[in-house]
């Protein structure tokens, strides 16, 4: 069989419909490849071999019967382990949920299943999506496929490493402050955080409900458009999902950016960013200018306040959301506690990891009597200022281009002891979550042999603009899928 690692969704669709390859053959090839590669990469928490093969057989039957199959039918994918899957463990990479099986599936999971997707398994992440390196996973740390001494980023480090290593055609992650885009940038893949409300959060284990969104991680922009279309849309089970028609995102992939007004916010190039990253991003901006985009330096003055405001709001919401893990309805329980209060305290104390406890305490503090106004209310007001920065700038610009992260993927262990240093890798991704607007990270070259990510930010529900610009850039840069050479024999 030809090299499965570089395949994209459209290529697989053609192979399947031309009957050059069966879904079962393809799935087996992926399972074999995961068997060989994953002991090195460690992206998978659970591999669902049997259900994957059963799903593949179903697709092959449909093809044999001459049924028309959709683009995602028979395409192997995998999911971040905070997306609920009925019948398959959803651990959030926490001792708390180590053996938990959800009684229902997330809406995005159902949508992909209906589209004929083949689920290969569940992927590693920082515990409860809190972290920027996957080092906060209870189970193990995922390696960056480009250099296994470095982290893949986080919290969706498993999903981005899996795509970069070719272990799945695409994956889904979740992004609360950059958890799709930051690891996508570190691993050299495409990652999109949709507008808040574009994709249903039903069945995504909540971290910070006013910030969380689910999004696709893919090898290229076209695959990203295809997966985004499949998972978007209103869901009666998520009252914050918005009832706006889902466009055919592939139609935005014209290669045309002529006349688009793109702002280059200077603040993103001022705060502790490596020189090589600045160069790569500005080179991409030049390419887009050559294509007719009108790029101009501008200012989003409250950018540097987004991170401190985020580290009040996200932990505050988390402290409330994670109150449900109390050893009663599901998850870990300390069996030796004599009364109910010590059962709560011990179950949570033993079942949750250090970063999760840190954020719960931070959030509890920020919401507690006497500190609420100084921290939580203040941060919400600053959130307004950040949103106003964008609202005002959107009067003049269609989109913004920034680096996705201030640095390339760091070495494993480098920031484990210093939570604040770890938080700073989310500097450029947090503002779009605070404003609820969509953003994408696209690979734009290498620094010190590691991938660099370009971030594009657009107006609410203007994912088409993001994809249009990203595709035009990718087209110009070269559409060849760049993945690390990993094949081991």
């Amino acid at each position: 069989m030809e090299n499965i690692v570089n395949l994209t969704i459209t290529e697989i669709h053609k192979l399947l419909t031309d009957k050059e390859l069966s879904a079962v053959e393809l799935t087996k090839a992926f399972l074999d490849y995961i068997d060989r590669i994953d002991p090195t990469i460690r992206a998978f928490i659970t591999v669902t071999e049997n259900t994957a093969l059963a799903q593949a057989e179903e697709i092959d039957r449909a093809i044999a019967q001459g049924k028309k199959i959709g683009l995602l039918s028979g395409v192997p994918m995998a999911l971040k382990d905070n997306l609920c899957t009925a019948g398959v463990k959803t651990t959030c990479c926490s001792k708390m949920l180590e053996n938990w099986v959800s009684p229902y599936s997330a809406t995005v999971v159902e949508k992909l299943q209906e589209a004929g997707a083949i689920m290969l398994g569940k992927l590693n992440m920082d515990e409860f999506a809190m972290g920027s390196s996957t080092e906060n996973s209870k189970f193990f740390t995922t390696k960056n496929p480009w250099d296994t001494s470095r982290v893949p980023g986080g919290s969706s480090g498993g999903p981005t490493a899996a795509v970069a290593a070719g272990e799945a055609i695409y994956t889904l992650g979740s992004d609360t402050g950059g958890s799709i885009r930051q690891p996508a940038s570190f691993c050299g893949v495409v990652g999109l955080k949709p507008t808040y409300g574009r994709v249903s959060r039903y069945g995504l284990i909540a971290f910070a409900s006013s910030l969380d969104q689910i999004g696709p991680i893919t090898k290229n922009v076209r695959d990203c458009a295809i997966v985004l279309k499949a998972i978007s849309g209103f869901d009666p089970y998520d009252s914050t999902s918005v009832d706006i028609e889902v466009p055919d995102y592939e139609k935005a992939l014209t290669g045309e950016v002529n006349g688009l007004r793109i702002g280059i916010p200077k603040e993103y190039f001022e705060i502790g960013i490596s020189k090589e990253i600045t160069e790569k991003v500005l080179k991409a901006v030049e390419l887009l200018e050559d294509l007719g985009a009108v790029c101009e330096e501008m200012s989003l003055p409250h950018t540097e306040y987004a991170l401190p405001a985020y580290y009040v709001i996200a932990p505050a919401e988390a402290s409330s959301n994670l109150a449900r893990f109390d050893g009663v309805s599901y998850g870990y329980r300390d069996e030796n506690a004599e009364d109910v209060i010590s059962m709560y305290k011990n179950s949570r104390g033993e079942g949750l990891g250090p970063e999760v406890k840190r954020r719960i305490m931070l959030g509890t503090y920020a919401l507690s009597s006497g500190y609420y106004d100084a921290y939580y209310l203040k941060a919400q007001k600053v959130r307004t200022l950040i949103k106003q920065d964008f609202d005002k700038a959107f009067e003049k610009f269609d989109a913004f281009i920034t680096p996705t992260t201030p640095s390339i993927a760091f070495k494993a262990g480098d920031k484990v002891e210093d939570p604040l240093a770890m938080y700073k890798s989310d500097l450029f991704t947090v503002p779009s979550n605070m404003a609820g607007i969509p953003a994408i990270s696209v690979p734009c070259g290498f620094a010190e042999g590691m991938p660099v990510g370009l971030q594009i930010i657009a107006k609410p529900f203007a994912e088409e603009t993001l994809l249009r610009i990203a595709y035009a850039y990718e087209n110009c840069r070269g559409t060849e899928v760049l993945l690390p050479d990993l094949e081991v024999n």
Partner: protein
Amino acid sequence: MTISLKELEHVAELARLSIPENELKAYTCQLDDILKSIEKLKELDTDNVEPTAHILPVRNVMRGDIVREGIGREDALGGAPDVEEGQFKVPKIV
């Protein structure tokens, strides 16, 4: 210090988290670092700024009062650490 050891113990109590004695100091220092970095927000005058709790104009969502299938008792209790007679079981409360 923005937060004292005693305050940290209080917060852990509010959050129902048992923290081993020998870890209290480390958590206090880390939270102090984080809270100090958050002090940056004080640079901004926000007296006349409305807070944003949510970026969407959130509204109440209603649906018809129609009976439909739920997940059922067995599934709902399926992940519980302790169950008796179709109910969640917890240690002594009073």
